[in-house]
């Protein structure tokens, strides 16, 4: 066997080059938009396209089409946001074949706005959003006094706990973080060290953001002409120190968020509570089917006054060059404020998402079987938390990359609980990313 090494090395180099380049060179499939501008009629409906990866949205679009003969929505499923969906949207806008309507997570909105991918929809959606959106989500879609998207849902942070084990270990649901610590000590003693009160997902930046928001932090803000980053503020430090103590004193578990190890800890009753948001009820129900009837939801413990943070949630937005913004806005108005939309979207019964529009919550509740939570009215509980969400939070255009830096740094603190350096790393990363993008950084 005597391979001709020279030519094979050239071919290999070539192969390496092409593989590495595939990463950057591919993407950007096109989806043609049928051009038919105008207001539309039953005979000749306006056709708009809508891209989303969120469960139930295809059924929702179908329900819209059934009741709105003048507008025809074509739904296309795309990969989930950061797994390629956002990239696909961004390429499509640049290539001039973007859909008219897209779904975005709140933390992606400023990113999209500063990339020039969204239409300033103040005219089309401003009044609508003013009409139904709670203050806490309005600030996530309004940047520079302009409305860029319409909120669909809101995710107040809450505490989920095993009511059976709380009873067994003789603890009350903690209302404050001080009581939470006492309860954590109690669980460890009462279970003879077998269980801990909580599996804290210490590498989950979203959880940290919510907890910091609750404590009074505002990580980002837009001044008149610059972005301000304040991840290392005293309120965040207070939160970081609180959890450092709990991890150091072995009062909570600290697994990687969403990891099989974390799931296992809850399955084995080694962790008996979780910090989540309104939408977590659905995933807890599907992840731990064996613990049906044993779970309950409570307001998140607080620092003295009942305030909570928010995690997750998504909005509808019109893309930059949509020529049918009017029809798109009508679809969005229906999708965010009509109970038929929520019924169609949540028909599968697996989502516990809390609509931002209060009047839709009854319809949402009717789709979700709460026997897993022993019949508790989790919608009423989550809904009652919405006014308590700390006001004035905004995301920044660079939050995705900041999250990455922070998550990696949080990972290093998994055993030690020394979380603070991760926030410092996040501050530096966000500042660097802002200047890298040519945005102005306020000092």
């Amino acid at each position, binding site marked *: *066997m005597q391979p001709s090494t020279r030519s094979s*090395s050239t071919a290999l180099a070539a192969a390496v080059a092409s593989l590495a*380049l595939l990463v950057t060179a591919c993407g950007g499939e096109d989806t043609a938009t049928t051009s038919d501008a105008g207001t539309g009629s039953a005979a000749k409906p306006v056709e708009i396209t809508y891209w989303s990866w969120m469960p139930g949205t295809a059924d929702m679009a179908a329900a819209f089409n059934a009741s709105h003969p003048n507008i025809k929505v074509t739904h296309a499923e795309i990969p989930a946001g950061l797994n390629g969906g956002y990239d696909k949207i*961004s390429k499509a806008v640049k290539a001039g074949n973007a859909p008219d309507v897209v779904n975005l997570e709140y933390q992606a909105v400023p990113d999209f706005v500063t*990339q020039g991918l969204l239409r*300033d929809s103040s005219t089309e959606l401003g009044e609508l959003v003013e009409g139904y959106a709670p203050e806490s989500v309005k600030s996530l879609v309004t*940047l520079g006094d302009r409305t860029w998207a319409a909120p669909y849902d809101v995710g107040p942070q809450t505490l989920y706990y095993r009511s059976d084990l709380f009873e067994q270990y003789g603890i009350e649901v903690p209302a404050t973080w001080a009581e939470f610590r006492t309860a954590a000590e109690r669980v460890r003693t009462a279970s003879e060290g077998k269980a801990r009160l909580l599996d804290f997902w210490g590498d989950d930046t979203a959880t940290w953001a919510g907890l910091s928001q609750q404590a009074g932090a505002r990580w980002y803000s837009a001044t008149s002409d610059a*972005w301000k980053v304040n991840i290392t503020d005293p309120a965040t430090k207070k939160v970081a120190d609180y959890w450092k103590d709990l991890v150091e004193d072995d009062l909570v578990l600290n697994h*990687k968020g969403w990891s099989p190890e974390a799931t296992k800890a809850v399955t084995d009753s080694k962790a008996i509570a979780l910090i989540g948001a309104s939408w977590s009820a659905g995933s807890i129900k599907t992840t731990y089917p064996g613990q049906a009837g044993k779970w309950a939801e409570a307001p998140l413990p607080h620092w003295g006054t009942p305030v909570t943070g928010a995690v997750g949630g998504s909005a509808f937005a019109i893309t930059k060059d949509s020529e049918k913004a009017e029809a798109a806005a009508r679809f969005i108005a229906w999708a965010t404020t009509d109970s038929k939309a929520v019924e169609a979207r949540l028909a599968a019964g697996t989502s516990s998402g809390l609509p931002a529009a209060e009047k839709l919550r009854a319809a949402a509740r009717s789709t979700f079987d709460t026997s897993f939570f022993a019949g508790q009215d989790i919608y009423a509980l989550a809904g009652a938390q919405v006014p308590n969400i700390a006001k004035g939070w905004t995301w920044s255009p660079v939050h995705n990359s900041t999250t990455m830096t922070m998550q*990696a740094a949080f990972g290093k603190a998994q055993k030690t609980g020394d979380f603070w350096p991760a926030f410092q790393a996040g501050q530096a990363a966000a500042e660097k990313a802002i200047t890298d993008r040519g945005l102005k950084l306020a000092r």
Partner: protein
Amino acid sequence: MTTRLGRGQRTIPLLFVAPFFILFLATLVAPVGYSLWMSLFREQATSGLGFGGTETIFVGAGNYGRALGDASFHRGFLHITLYCLIYIPVMVGGALALALLVDSAMARARKFFQLAYFLPHAVPGLIAAIIWGFLYTPGLSPVVDLLRTVGVEWDFLGPDGVVFSMANAAAWQWIGYNMVIFYAALQAVPKETLEAATVDGAGQLRTALSVKLPMIRSSVVLTMLFTAVGAIQLFNEPEVLRSRSSAISQDWSPVMYIYQAAFTEHDYGLAAAASLLLALLGAALSFVITKFGNRWKEA
């Protein structure tokens, strides 16, 4: 006078090589050229808050400078260097040892062992990484439990252990494959040479190390080349283990860094520049290994 025949003689070979060149141009030269073009530009916000969108500006070699100056890009190379230092000796050594064992006169059931060792390679890399991920997860893995019962606390997914875990998963998958290559090469070693060695009084071990091994050098060099070039593109294992290990960041390896620059940060200029740098390294690496390997072969 140029005859029809003359023209035909020139065009017919062209027809035969055309499929190669068309594909070569479309799938290699064009993307490389496009990346080169992309790597010269950068998206920048048009206002302080960025609400006006972005504009594309020409930055020349600026993106290359940024990639080369980025500490996390450096760390990626450090990570794969560490990975190679563990993985290549284990994998090539293991494959060689197995091939020589199966080839030795004492071996029974050769076909069976050949197949058995090769089997892991039939499992797609991504699936293998997922399965190993489970085997590394405390609380789920019988291996971790077993180690614990004998008093060994080893965190497969921790900052110290995770590179070994990755090398282990990759070695499991590739040892058998490369063993087959080495074994095939060993079949080409002339019987007379082996007989001569036996007549000269060489035992099994001596024959393996001093006769067989030098005669399959070219296969070993080729394997090392494939392995090193594959290793700099490390992506599957760390990407899959990332969901389980806090020790792996989203830009852990250079390819992950590129992926992240392109798809999380929309920084295509940086991603293109980093891709080209990585491709250059791949080309340089194959050149060095081939040169070095040729010298070894001639020695």
